[in-house]
């Protein structure tokens, strides 16, 4: 079973919404909104890994930045360790930031080309008032821990490192403040398969050593299945299904989740499905379909799917689906909490 399920959640998101305005014309008037994240709620319990999966453009990265308050949500509530993040005062926010850190997707854009990697890692400590010498020593110790000998690499610049090495630096930078929560935004997507495995193993070791809690964002279902305790499936800014990694792998309920599993390359012949894989691109998030946003690509779409969006309903213990197909067996009102 997932670790920490019984304890109060470390991170709680309720009804998170972010719509980006599209401006144009001489007067820069808003003519449309990109509904990047639309009413997303979830809990993350201490020491668990919550996987967030979905196609490109479904709002995963926006969600990561919302959680860390790098962009302000339009609506919704985020609580971290029981504290309301959105109403935190600037000094309080600075303190909160030590507890939640982000590892970025692009190992090239995420490191300052003018800083040695030692200084890049130590910078966060300096921000929080650690003396320079101590900050550097801790940065070097952490670089050593993530597999980069500080005597060989500490004084090097980002462009002298490979993608995998840079991602290790990113991880060290995120960990140097001793956070409780690490949001990993596609941390291995830009890496070769073999390097991916090394970085994933490193993340697993660090999580065990430091009792970390992960929010792991990826479009790669195999990776998500491998690392996650629970999984959140997103489609066009909305959560369509959530459940334990095992439950989702064994009995995906939402047609979208089923299609995702069907299209994920699998080595196991028993896991192959006879359902049609997904066709076409996801619709534009600027003007999403009415009702259920997946209905335009869904093999089971019914007339009522266009009328109103289906709510997330519990179909099993800790397994929620937003689909009318399961309304009969669902216990209405059990989710979201």
């Amino acid at each position, binding site marked *: 079973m997932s670790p920490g399920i019984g304890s109060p959640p470390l991170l709680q998101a309720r009804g998170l919404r972010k719509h980006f305005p599209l401006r144009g014309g001489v007067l820069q008037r808003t003519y449309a909104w990109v509904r990047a994240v639309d009413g997303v709620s979830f809990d993350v319990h201490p020491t668990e890994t919550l996987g967030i999966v979905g196609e490109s453009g479904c709002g995963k990265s926006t969600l990561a930045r919302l959680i860390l308050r790098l962009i302000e949500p339009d609506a919704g509530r985020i609580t971290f360790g029981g504290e309301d993040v959105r109403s935190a005062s600037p000094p309080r926010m600075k303190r909160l*930031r030590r507890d939640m850190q982000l590892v970025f997707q692009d190992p090239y854009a995420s490191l300052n080309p003018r800083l040695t990697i030692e200084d890049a890692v130590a910078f966060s400590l300096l921000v929080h008032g650690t003396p320079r010498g101590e900050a550097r020593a801790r940065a070097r110790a952490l670089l050593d821990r993530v597999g980069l000998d500080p005597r060989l690499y500490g004084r090097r610049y980002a462009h002298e490192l490979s993608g995998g090495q840079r991602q290790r630096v990113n991880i060290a930078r995120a960990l140097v403040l001793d956070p409780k929560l690490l949001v990993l935004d596609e941390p291995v997507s830009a890496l070769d398969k073999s390097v991916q495995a090394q970085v*994933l193993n490193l993340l697993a070791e660090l999580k065990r050593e430091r009792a970390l809690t992960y929010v792991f964002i990826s479009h790669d279902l195999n990776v998500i299945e491998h690392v996650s305790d629970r999984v959140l499936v997103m489609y066009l800014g909305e959560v369509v299904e959530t459940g334990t990694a095992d439950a989702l792998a064994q009995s995906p309920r939402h047609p979208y989740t089923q299609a995702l599993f069907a299209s994920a390359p699998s080595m196991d012949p028993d896991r192959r499905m006879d359902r049609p894989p997904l066709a076409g691109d996801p619709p534009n998030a600027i003007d999403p379909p009415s009702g259920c946003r997946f209905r335009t690509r869904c093999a089971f779409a019914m007339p009522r799917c266009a009328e109103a969006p289906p709510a997330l309903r519990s179909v099993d213990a800790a397994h929620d689906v937003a689909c009318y197909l399961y309304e009969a067996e669902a216990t209405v009102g059990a989710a979201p909490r």
Partner: protein
Amino acid sequence: MTQIEAVGGVATFGPGPGSLPPTLNVAPMSYWRTVAWRLARDPATLVAGSVLVLIVLSAVLAPWLAPYDPSAGSIRLRLAPVGASAHLLGTDEQGRDMLSRLLWGGRMTLVAGLTPVLIAFVLGTGLGVLAGYVGGLTNTLVMRTMDIFYAFPAVLLAIAISGALGPGLPNTLISLSIVFVPRVVRVAESATVQVKGLEYIAAARASGAGVRAIVRHHLLANVLGPILVFASTQVSLAIILAAGLSFLGLGVTPPAAEWGLMLNTLRQSIYVNALVPALPGIAIFVTSMAFNLLSDGLRDAMEIRA
């Protein structure tokens, strides 16, 4: 999470701790040292740089190098040809020693060319970074104001402002600064907007760093380079504009020696002695060319990409 067995454990890069003597820790050169190293190995830059050093030195040392008083003329010795005895580069239409005037004139021209670009570099970087980093209404206000200046051709704008302010070196510096500030602001703003969107800035924000720390440690270090290269390309233009203003009588006032002004007063003598009136022009050409080559070299040397 479980280990992925097929690939094995975490690979360590390089030998493990303790296996290397600390002397092997050869720190790679910092960015600016690398740039300097590359500049010193580019032949065109070396030549241009040496020429510039000579020009700057001769201008600085003009009071000691000049054989004559640059404004003392002699009616008897007007328009002596190049190579005349006692006047190596001849004399001008009032019989003043050309070598002395060229040396003294270089001071004026260099001051009038470098100062506005320096002012524009400082002001333009400040305004551009402000507009780019803050964005929104601030950006609109700053950038649209700059667009107003940008709408006029550089020469026209310089002449208009100088004409309104009147002749004299300080007014030349003011008008040329107004010409160059908007250009630098544009470059600084676009560089800032581009760098601001990169993930290492987001990472710095996520670490709790304030605006000042982010701008100082992450933003400026990455935008100053391109702005510096752009500013260096503007020096030759500033020299030509400054000389042009003096030529039109809007810059340095006679009898002071300045290359553009000398070109103006000598231009009617071109039928008497072709080479002497061309000398200030040659000086302007060589100086601005040297600055151009230097900025080209700088741009190449700074293109250190991953």
